[in-house]
Each structure stands twice: as C-alpha cells, then as structure tokens.
C-alpha cells in the first residue's frame, strides 16, 4: 500500500506542474477591468463594440512601430490571446501586422501604426449569486463593473459602500440622468444628505412590463381581442368569459387568462403605495387591502380562475431560460397542456419568441401573432419599469477607466446593438423612435409590439418606491411573507396587512435606534427632517380634500411641492390628480405625462 501512496503523490506533483504550465499567457500592457454580468451570448459583441468605441472616442494609446525589433518587443509585451484579438479588431488597417505577429514569414512594411484602447474589458460571467458579489466586494477583490438589478441592489450596495458616485463624470462624459428614461431615476440615483441627486449607475437595458397578447389563443376560444387599456372591472369581465369558454367542461382548469401581474402595479392602480410620501413609515392602507383581495379572487376563487396559484403553477413544467415554462405555455396551441391568453413580461421575451418562431417555421406552423396591452387599473393606470444597470466598484484600482464603460452605455453604437438584439429597451429613449427599432426588417410579425413598450416606458411607467430607513429587500420579504400567509388561509386579510405594516415600521425604528447609538448619527437627522416634511404634506392634503369637498379648484399654494416628495409613485399620482406643484425641469429632460383614465 505504501507504493500506491508514493505513486499517487508523484502523479499529483506532476499534475501540479502540468497545470501550472497550462495556464494561458496573460501578458498585456493594457490594464484589464472585469465586467461581472450574466451569461448572455450578446455580451461578447458588446465588449467588442466597447473597445471600438474607446478608440473612436480617442481613448487610446498609439504606438508607432518603426521596425521589426520594435514590433517584436510590442507583441512580446502583448502576448495574451485576448489582447491580440483586440489589436486585430481595432486596427483593421494593420491586419497584415497581426498576421506577421503569429507567422513571421508574412510580408509587412514598416513603420506601422497600432492603437490600443486604454483599457481592456473582460467578462466575468460566473455571476449566479449576489452573495459572491458582496463577499468579494467587501474583501476588496470585487469585479470592476458589476451588473445591478434595479433599486434594490443600488441601495444595498450603497449601504455596504461598494458603488461609486459618478455624478460629475456623468455630466462630463454625457451619461447623466437626462439621457435616459425619467421614470427609472429612483433605480439609478439616490438623494444625499443635502437633498441633491447623486447618480451611481447607468442602465444596460431598461424594461417596462406589459401584457403580451396571443391573438391566436383568443381567436381559438372565440374571444374578442382585449383593448389596450381596460379598467379592472372590464378586465375581469373579459377574463371570466375567456376562462369559461376555454375550459368548458374540463374537470381541471388548464387555460388561464393571465400568468401573473406584479402586485405593486395592482396596488398602485388602486391609488396606494408601500410607503408614505417621504418614506418615513409604511402606510398599507385601503389600496393594499383591495389589491390583495383582488389577487386572491383571481387566484383562488371561483370554478375557473383568472390566474394560476402556486399549486397550479407546479403542475406545469419547470425550466430555466427567459420566461421559463410560462413562455412555453403562452405560445403553444394545446389547451390540454396549459395555456395563457396574456403574458406579463418585458420586451426581452422577444428573444425567446424569435427562437420559438424559428422552431415553428421548421414544423410548418405560422409565427406567433402577438399584440401588447397595458395592465388594468382602478384609479391610476401605471406599469412597472426595471433596469439592469452597471455600476463602478468603489475599490477598483481602475475606477476612472471603468467609468468610460458607463459612458459607452449611453453611446449610439451600444444603443443600436440593443435595438437590433431585441434585448429589452435601449438605455437612451431617443433610439426607440427609429425605424430600426419600430420596424425591424427581419421580423415583420413584431411591428405591433415594439412601439407600445417604448411608449409605456415613457408614459405610464413608474419606478420603485423606497425608503431611506429600510432595505428594499427586507420590506419586500416582510410583505410577501404576510401575503403568502393570507393566501394560504393562515391569516385574515386585515390581520396580514396590519402585521406587515407593523413589522416594516418596527424595522425602520430599529434601524434608527441602531443609528442613534453611533457617535455621529446619519439617519436620525434625515428622519426628523422628513417627518417634519411629512407633517406639512399631510396638512396640505387635508386642505386639498377640503377644496375637493367644496367643489373648488385647488389653488397653487395648496399644491404639494414636488421637491418634498421622495416616493416616485406619489409624484406621478399627484401629478395625475393635479395636486402637484411641479419643479421647473431643464429643457433636456422629458416630462412624464400619466395618461388619464378613459
């Protein structure tokens, strides 16, 4: 047995040497930054565009190689496969030189001019887990550019000190908030202690959620196509007709009207939000109660229901990929296996639909016939908007170079690539007004679809509602736990709402108590200031109610100033109601106009 032991030891040592030798050569004179992102094949193309853009914008280092020795030294310094590829891509005129680098027998005339971008971008796609970003981030070895998903991440990462304030750079390099959708401002920027807006990220893409309509499914069950805007009452009426017709006589329901609807959108349409106007406390009022009751009705009540609940959902297959199983069920023609009439998602699902259309064409089926409609509403038409945004890691040794990447995201080349790719909406809204966006030549069946998404992102979308004093993930977890308990029958409706509100407020107070114990409290002064503001807002609201009761128009001085309100929902809602005293906006910013209910 000792021989086995020795043999294994020797084999392993040899293996160690082999592994060391097998490591690829990474020599390069250009600093490298890492982009921590998801496993989307389009990223490679975006990286290539970035390097090209850097050179086009003048952020490059130029080398004039006079003779063979200099060229040899240059290529020796830049040995890694990735930098060689970049040299080739970015210097089309020096193709011969690049060939010469690999095969010295190629003929080349000197001097040659070669440009290297100031920084090399590499992908880090093992990004399944937010935990990894946090652990590496706090240990000062995080990726230089990290993808963030909406305002949750923004606030969490800011709390841990991992993202960088890029406001000045944004103005200088032209990727400030005026170049993107106004509605996603809460997802990209935070107000500091003085009330000024500080920007931390820039969107890689933007997504407004709407309903896709499978027109073929509606026709299959003999139902009229739904209009683009509906009240909840109308929605329910059409919905129940749909499910009754589609499931007629079936013991177990397999066809549903819609697959899902974001709770926040529903609640906002009843005129409520999670927090009050200043984010100092949670106000789960009548709107929350009504939204939960409606959701419960759609999922659990009646012979045939509009929306599947968890048990129904697990009857369908489960897989990964965009949209997962729901997308499959939305798009096929077999009611026995499960079907949806409406699908709540963003424009990015077109990627999956395009693949499905290819498969359908191969089987001789016509492509999907899709339309887009807005979510139903009770008092206030709205939809949600989200973004995958990029931020610069605060401890990165190449912060300034990484900031160029954010500027790249606002560039024409990047936006056009997003438009062509169909991967949600481009960060800059003016690129949605192009023919390339609205009427992509290869996909004529999509021409009804692109424009409503873009319009929704500008017209009716509202960003998230946040509070300075509680992490969004904590608040969401509290609410969804109590919502689950209500749906499971373990709690009454009023009880669940009351408990959720109490718990959120407890958390807020706990954060404040913790802050009080610091030598220099940060949150408490802000809290006191905002509580005072809230009192003033409430006073104004009372006056407004008096005016309304008396049937008078609301005078200017009784309107609520926009600068006082932190909650994006209330800004949009009060504007819609005419209660808002607006801030004069700089001309380059597009105003949001909420559409009146019709």
């Amino acid at each position, binding site marked *: 047995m000792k021989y086995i032991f020795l043999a294994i030891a020797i084999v392993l040592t040899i293996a160690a040497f082999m592994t060391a030798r097998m490591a690829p050569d990474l020599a390069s004179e250009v600093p490298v930054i890492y982009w921590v992102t998801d496993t989307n094949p389009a990223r490679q193309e975006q990286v290539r565009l970035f390097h090209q853009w850097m050179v086009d914008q003048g952020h490059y280092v130029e080398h004039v190689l006079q003779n063979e020795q200099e060229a040899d030294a240059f290529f020796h310094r830049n040995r890694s496969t990735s930098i060689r590829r970049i040299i080739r891509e970015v210097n089309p005129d020096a193709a011969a030189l690049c060939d010469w680098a690999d095969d010295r027998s190629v003929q080349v005339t000197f001097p040659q001019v070669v440009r290297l971008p100031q920084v090399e971008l590499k992908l880090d796609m093992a990004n399944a887990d*937010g*935990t990894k970003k*946090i652990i590496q*981030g*706090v*240990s*000062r070895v995080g990726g230089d550019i990290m993808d963030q998903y909406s305002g949750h991440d923004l606030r*969490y990462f800011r*709390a*841990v*000190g*991992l993202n960088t304030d890029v406001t000045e750079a944004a103005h200088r390099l032209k990727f400030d908030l005026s170049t993107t959708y106004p509605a996603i401002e809460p997802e990209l920027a935070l107000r500091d202690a003085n009330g000024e807006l500080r920007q931390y990220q820039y969107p890689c893409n933007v997504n407004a959620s709407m309903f896709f309509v499978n027109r073929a499914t509606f026709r299959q069950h003999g139902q009229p196509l739904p209009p683009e805007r509906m009240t909840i009452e109308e929605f329910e009426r059409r919905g129940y007709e749909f499910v009754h017709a589609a499931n007629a006589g079936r013991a*177990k329901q397999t066809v549903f009207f819609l697959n899902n609807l974001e709770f926040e959108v529903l609640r906002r349409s009843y005129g409520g939000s999670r927090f009050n106007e200043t984010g100092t406390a949670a106000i789960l009022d009548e709107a929350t109660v009504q939204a939960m009751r409606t959701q419960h009705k759609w999922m659990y009540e009646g012979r045939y229901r509009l929306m599947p*609940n*968890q*048990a129904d*959902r*697990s*009857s369908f*297959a*489960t897989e990964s990929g965009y949209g997962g199983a729901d997308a499959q069920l939305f798009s096929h023609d077999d009611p026995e296996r499960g079907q949806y009439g409406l699908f709540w998602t963003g424009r990015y699902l077109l990627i999956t639909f395009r693949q499905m259309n290819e498969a359908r064409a191969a089987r001789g089926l016509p492509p999907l016939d899709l339309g887009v409609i807005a979510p139903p509403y009770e008092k206030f038409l709205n939809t949600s908007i989200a973004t995958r945004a990029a931020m610069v890691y*605060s*401890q990165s040794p190449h912060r300034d170079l990484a900031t160029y990447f954010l500027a790249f995201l606002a560039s024409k080349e990047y936006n056009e690539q997003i438009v062509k790719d169909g991967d949600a909406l481009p960060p800059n809204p003016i690129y949605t007004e192009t023919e390339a966006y609205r009427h992509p030549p290869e996909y004529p069946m999509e021409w009804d679809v692109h424009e409503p998404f873009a319009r929704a992102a500008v017209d009716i979308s509202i960003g998230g509602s946040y509070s300075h004093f509680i*992490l969004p*993930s*904590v608040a969401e*977890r509290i609410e969804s*736990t109590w919502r*689950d*308990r209500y*749906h*499971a*029958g*373990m709690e009454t409706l009023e009880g669940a709402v009351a408990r959720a509100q109490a718990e959120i407020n407890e958390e807020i107070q706990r954060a404040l108590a*913790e802050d009080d*114990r*610091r030598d220099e409290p940060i949150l408490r002064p802000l809290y006191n200031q905002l509580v005072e503001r809230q009192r003033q807002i409430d006073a104004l609201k009372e006056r407004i109610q008096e005016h309304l009761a008396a049937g008078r128009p609301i005078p200017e001085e009784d309107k609520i100033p926009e600068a006082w309100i932190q909650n994006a929902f209330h800004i949009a809602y009060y504007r819609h109601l005419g209660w808002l005293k607006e801030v004069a906006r700089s001309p380059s910013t597009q105003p949001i106009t909420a559409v009146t209910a019709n």
Partner: protein
Amino acid sequence: MTLDTSTNQPGDAQSPFSGQKPEFPVMRPDYTQDAQALSKSARKRQRKNLAYGLGFLAPNILGFLAFTAIPLVIAMYMAFTNWDVGMHNNPERREPLRFVGLENFIRLIQMPQFWQYLGNTLFFMMGMPFSIAGSLFAAILLSKDLKGGSNRTWTILIAGAVLVASTLMLVAWGASGTAMAMLIAGLTGMILIGGTAGGTTVYRTLFYVPHFTAGVATYLLWKKLFVPDTGPIAAAVQPVLTSIEGVVRASPPAAVQSGFVICMLLGAALIFLGLGRLRRYWEDGEIGAAGVLLSAALLMVPVALVGRWYGFDLYAEDPATGSRSMDLGWGSIWLLGSTALILVYHILRALRADHEFVEKRQPWLGVGTGLMFAATVMVAVFVMIGLGPVFHNLPTWATTGDGLKTPAWLADVHWAKPSLMIMGFWGAIGSNNMLLYLAALTNVPQELYEAADIDGASRFQRFWSVTWPQLAPTTFFVVVMGVIGGLQGGFEMARVMTQGGPAGQTTTLAYFIYKEGFETGRLGFSSAVAWTLFLMVFVVTLFNWKFGNKYVND
C-alpha cells in the same frame, strides 16, 4: 501483556465505544488523569505519549486551526456583536464593532418566525431514524457477495435478455404511448442481467447513483415527480385515494368516525403500556430516577400537545341542518383524563416497590434505553393522535367538493414538509451512510456469527446481539453526522425546490441564516441563529457520547 495502568484500551468496557462482548479477555484499568497520583516514570511516559499524540495530530491540527477554528471563533464571537456588513465591512467607512451581549438572541427568541423555522428543522429531523434504518438495511442486503455460476444464473440471464429485446423492438417501432412502461421493463431487465453477471458490484453502484450527481439535478427531478395531479407520484396515489373514497361513501358516517374513537383508545392503551414498561424497568433496577422521569416526560409530550391540536370544542353544529355532532374536543378530554389516571395508577404501584433497592442506584442509569423506548412509543402515540382527526373528517372530505384528491405536494402548506421528507428518505437509502455501514459490516468478525449460530440464535437475535453492537461506533458517527446535517441541511433543497415556501413552511434554520444574513447584511444576527443550531447539535452529541455506551451494553 503489560499492566500499564495509564492506558485506556479501546476494548475497555468503560469506554463508550466498546464494540466487543465482555467474554473477550480485556483489562479493566482505571484511567485517571490525575498526574500527581502517578509515579515519576509514569509521568515521563505520559509526556512521551503526549509528544507522540500531538506529533501524529500535528499536520491536521495546524491546518484545522488556521482554516476552521479561527474563523469559527470569530463567527461565534460575532453573534454577540452588532456585526452588519454595511457598517463593519464597508470599505469606505469603518465603524467600531459594538458588543451587544445577548441582544441578538433576545430578538431571535421574540421572533415568531424563528419558532416556525425551528419547528420545521426539528420536523425534518424526525425522519432520521428511518433513514438510518433504511441505509443499514440496504447495506446488509448489499454486503452479501452474489456471484453465481450455476443454472439459475442462466435462467435469470435469459429472462433479462428477453425483456431487453422486447423493449428495443417496441421502441424501434415507435410505440411511445406505452414508452414509460417499456422503459421500466427494459431497465429492470438490464439491471437484472447486470446484477447476476456482475454481482453486487453492480447493485452497489446503482444504489449509490443518486449521489453521483450534484444535488441540484436530483432536486429538479423530484420537483417534476411531485407535480400535483398529473405527476407520477400523484398518479400512483390517486387510485388508492379513490378507492378509499368509495368505501367511505358506501359506509355510514358514524362507522367511519368510530375510527376516531378507536384511535383514542389505542393512544391511551399505548401510554398505559409504555408507562408500565418504564415502571417495570424501575422495579427491576435497570433505570434511575432521572432516567425514568425524563422518559416518562418524553412519552407524555403528545398528551401535552393534544389540547392545542384538537381544541376543546365538544360539539360541532352543522349550520345547514342544525344538528349537533361529536367534535374533537372529546378526544382531548379523554386523553388528558385517562393519562392522569394511568399516571396515578403506575405511580402508586411503583411506590409499593422495594425501597432499599430503589435508593441504591444512581439517577442517570439507563437513561439512554429509557429515552429510546419512550421516543418510540411517543411517535406511535403521535401517529394515533394524527389519525384520529383523519377518521373524524373523512366522511366530510369524501362527500364534499371533488372528493378525496391528492394534495398539491410541494405547494400545499401542510404537505410541503412531508413531501421533502419522502425525498430525503429516498436519498438516504443509497447514501454515504450505506457505504459506511457496508464497510463496517465487513469488520464484524466472522467468529462471532459462528458462535451465535452454535447458540442457536434466530436471525433477528443474531442481528441484535452481534451485528448491532459491532456497528456501534459507526452508528454513533452516523447519528452525529445525521443530526449535524439535519440541523444544517435543507438549505440547498429549499433554495432549488421551494424557496422556503409556501408561507415559510419549508424554511429551515440553515436557509434562514442564509437569507437573513446575505439579504440584510446583518451577519451578527445570523451568527446568533447559527449558535442555536450549534447548541442543539452539541447537546445531542454530548448526550450520545455519555449515554450511548449504556444503550449498547444493555
């Protein structure tokens, strides 16, 4: 042989891991750690032993200290601070860590979700004895060396070949309607052939197959199996339920509900018999005062909980017809009352035992046996209490709505945990525990079996007196690792299959630590939760350590 009194042999009956029967000649030295009592040469030897001991330990313990012990101590200390990633790991500002004492623990205890998650964790642990038994059974089956070369092998081989051939033909002709059945037949055939030709090697590999794939693939598959109504498990169980429903509908409701009464009677009978056995242990001098009290307390846990589950409503009124019928409250009253009477009866009888005999024994004697016995009876009583309402409500369930239907498994609030336990049990059979038992079984000396045979032992006796004691060290390992794994586990399972739902029913403490810690950054609080896990495991292990040998030697 030396008469070195400072050594403690593994064969010493006082050591908890004695695996041999006392008839083997062993020494019974007194191992004392009191250095002063030893002579100088003994002390020198002790130092030399220490050198050897630490010398062999050195490579392991150095790495262990560096990579396990130090982070562990840090993490455990953090439970008493207000460690928050946002405040203390923030690269932009460093705040001083504040010691908060027991504040995290107090907040934890006050959180109702903590108790729910603790209950979930303990519930999952209840399946452990069955898992261990299952893996032991599998190991015993697989320890026989089945290699054959005689006629019957040929018979089996031919049968298998026929099966496989027919499967291939049908598949080739595209009869995919019965594809699943053919698949199963084909697989069975192939396994049979492999088993007879290759012997137990093949079976062992097949049993261990679930563990080759990383957990995620298995979890995804079980998610598919547990699909409600149309999934394979539901499809298999539904016919059984339908036939039960038929029977129930055909019988008068009172007859079915009498099952509830029977369950209650059986429950009381079990308590009577259980307490009686404990009393007899006491009278025979096999158990001490502390032991009998703890065991009796454990036995009566179900009685303590029955009021909460059944309520105390004596009558239920049917709103439609206004008629009154017996409700579950009778069960609570019956159980509580009868247990009180039973207790009084047994205590009186025990008090009439021989006083002198009683006073002489130490209180912790036999506590292991007593608790094991009491735990078994307790589970049985739980089963009775659980079945009672089932019988009681069966007529209603069978006649209203859709009748008896399979539940929504993972999505159903009441069935999520049992479904996961079923999956856990499947995984446990062909698991690492099975391998351990396989290896340990070969270490059992053949002579012991032959001796048992000579004595005319039955199969069960042979197992209980020879095999089981020899496996004691392995069982200790399996139980401790099982408790550790059970209390720490459920994390990957929850993440992939249920995300801790529905309504927090499948969130274990381990998953809670992860969610709370990395979602909010409050790792100090997470460490406090980890502490509670640690304490529970520690207590169980210590208990096993001290009292396990008593059980083995009983």
